[in-house]
């Protein structure tokens, strides 16, 4: 039996749709769905005589993304035409960037294991226009819709630095967080605003000799799960294939496979890398872009602390768990709410619980994001402080938060209105305790007798007091009174 060691190697080609109001080279509005071929003009229809003019916002968003990915931003960049014929590409060339992309040589850090970051190198990031869509319906024909044609896309290419499906997934999630944080993209995989194409192969050591399997490019991935599963699938498929055929990587034997989510397998789409000849050349209709250092710095100033840095900082600075820090940093608005509340004096763990439990539950129920819930940091801080001061119990926080989404009243006012303020007046509570003691002689005996039953009976009495106070008694004070009564 020979020994086989095997490592999976994955690089990604990623397309991110930029969050602009209009297309990359024309003023057609960008919206999801809508009547087919309704958002089309002479430019994105590729009519003769039409000319592209670059969307400044698209360019600036890309530069911000490039900076966030630690790329070197070029001082000179230009546009090239990439030629191929396809019905969803009206000009039969795509405006893209070839030899002088606006950014190169960056990296992204992804969380691995517990609290560690792994650095994945970014080869390059460039801007290009999206194609339209070919719709294959029943019948002998295909339909072409150009609404998407000309949508600005950021293409990011990574080095083959990932070594498992879970790392690929982690990168995808991390990238999504980053571009969402920066407002660069909505980055919904379901809506196709973020598309991943992994290039997968195996490095195998068999009997002391290293082999590399042919690279497979996987397409049709529209969820993080599909991304991870397809890589894992390729891992085992390629190993099997290698053991059966011994086939290794050589020029031109890269294949393309599509992910079949229902069956959980990849299906061969194209056996060999076709001899594509894209005939790139500089687009004479567009001017190059010169980026001054000033401009780049201005873009840099628009960046914010990136999610993973935030996540690690929350663990370190606020002693939150990995999990909690991850939840809080998933969305920029949530992280900002958290930080705002802490800044206003909320105890971090307390604030975290209010947001991550009550808050996210509310958002979920409303089908909206936290940012859309009319909850501000001041309110969250106020709630946290009330819990901390035992003015309300932890359970009341959710009710106050829920009410906050509907009114502009202060946390305190809401708590009073909803009768959630705990009774802390010792003499009032003592009356209640006395009444409970009078009504439950058996339990009182059990407490006094000590031993096994004593603790349960004490709890029972406590419960009775709380019941009498309709839940508004401060448990700490009640417990102190009980202790005093029974010595």
């Amino acid at each position, binding site marked *: 039996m020979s020994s086989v060691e095997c490592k999976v190697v994955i690089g990604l080609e990623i397309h991110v749709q930029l969050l602009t*109001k209009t297309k990359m080279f024309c003023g057609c509005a960008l919206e999801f769905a809508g009547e087919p*071929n309704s958002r089309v003009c002479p430019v994105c229809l590729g009519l003769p005589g039409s000319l592209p003019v670059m969307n400044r916002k698209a360019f600036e968003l890309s530069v911000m993304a490039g900076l966030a990915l630690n790329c070197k931003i070029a001082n000179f960049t230009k546009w090239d035409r990439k030629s191929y014929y396809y019905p969803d590409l009206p000009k039969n060339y795509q405006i893209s960037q070839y030899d002088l992309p606006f950014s190169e040589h960056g990296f992204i850090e992804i969380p691995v294991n517990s609290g560690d970051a792994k650095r994945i190198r970014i080869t390059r990031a460039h801007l290009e226009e999206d194609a339209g869509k070919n719709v*294959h319906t029943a019948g002998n024909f295909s*339909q072409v819709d*150009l609404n998407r044609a000309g949508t600005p896309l950021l293409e990011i290419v990574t080095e083959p630095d990932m070594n498992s499906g879970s790392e690929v997934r982690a990168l995808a999630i991390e990238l999504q967080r980053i571009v969402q944080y920066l407002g660069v993209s909505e980055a919904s995989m379901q809506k196709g605003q973020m598309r991943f194409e992994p290039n997968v192969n195996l490095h195998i050591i068999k009997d002391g000799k290293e082999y590399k399997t042919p690279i497979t490019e996987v397409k049709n991935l529209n969820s993080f799960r599909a991304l991870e599963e397809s890589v894992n699938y390729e891992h085992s498929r390629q190993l099997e294939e290698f053991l059966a055929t011994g086939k290794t990587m050589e020029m031109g034997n890269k294949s393309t496979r599509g992910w079949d989510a229902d069956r959980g397998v990849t299906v061969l789409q194209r056996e060999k890398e076709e001899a594509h000849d894209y005939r790139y050349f500089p687009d004479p209709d567009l001017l190059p872009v010169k980026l001054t250092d000033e401009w780049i710095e201005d873009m840099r100033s628009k960046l914010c602390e990136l999610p993973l840095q935030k996540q690690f900082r929350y663990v370190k600075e606020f002693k939150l768990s990995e999990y909690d820090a991850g939840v809080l940093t998933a969305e920029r608005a949530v992280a900002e709410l958290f930080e705002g509340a802490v800044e206003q004096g909320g105890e971090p763990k307390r604030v975290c619980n209010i947001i991550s439990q009550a808050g996210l539950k509310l958002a979920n129920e409303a089908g909206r994001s936290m940012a859309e819930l009319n909850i501000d940091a001041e309110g969250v801080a106020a709630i946290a402080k009330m819990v901390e001061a035992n003015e309300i119990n932890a359970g009341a926080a959710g009710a106050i938060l829920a009410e906050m989404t509907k009114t502009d009243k202060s946390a305190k006012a809401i708590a009073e209105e909803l009768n959630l303020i705990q009774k802390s007046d010792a003499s009032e509570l003592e009356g209640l305790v006395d009444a409970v003691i009078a009504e439950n002689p058996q339990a009182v005996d059990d407490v006094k007798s000590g031993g096994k039953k004593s603790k349960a009976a004490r709890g029972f009495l406590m419960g009775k007091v709380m019941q009498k106070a309709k839940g508004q008694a401060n448990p700490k004070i009640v417990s102190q009174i009980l202790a005093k009564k029974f010595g």
Partner: protein
Amino acid sequence: MAQKIDIDQVRKVANLSRLDLSSEQLTEFAGQLSSILEYVEKMNELDTDGVEPLAHCLEVSNCFREDIAKESLGTDKTLSNAPEQDGQFFIVPKILDESNAS
């Protein structure tokens, strides 16, 4: 004398250009393109080492438009010149090999 570009190359170029040419046309083009290319290679008499290629004669850069929506043509006008359409889409014979897309 051997031609600069042979018929197989001409066929390949015709394919890249999406031109369905007859074999007579291929032969004719092979001859004509060869003599044009031979002439064009006159450029090789010039030493261009260190010369910056000039793709644009304008020495300007950074032309942008603001991200403001303009009216689109709408479906009817978009499809108005289409050889085949169904009121919503352009129609082409069935595309079988989706992977041909870039």
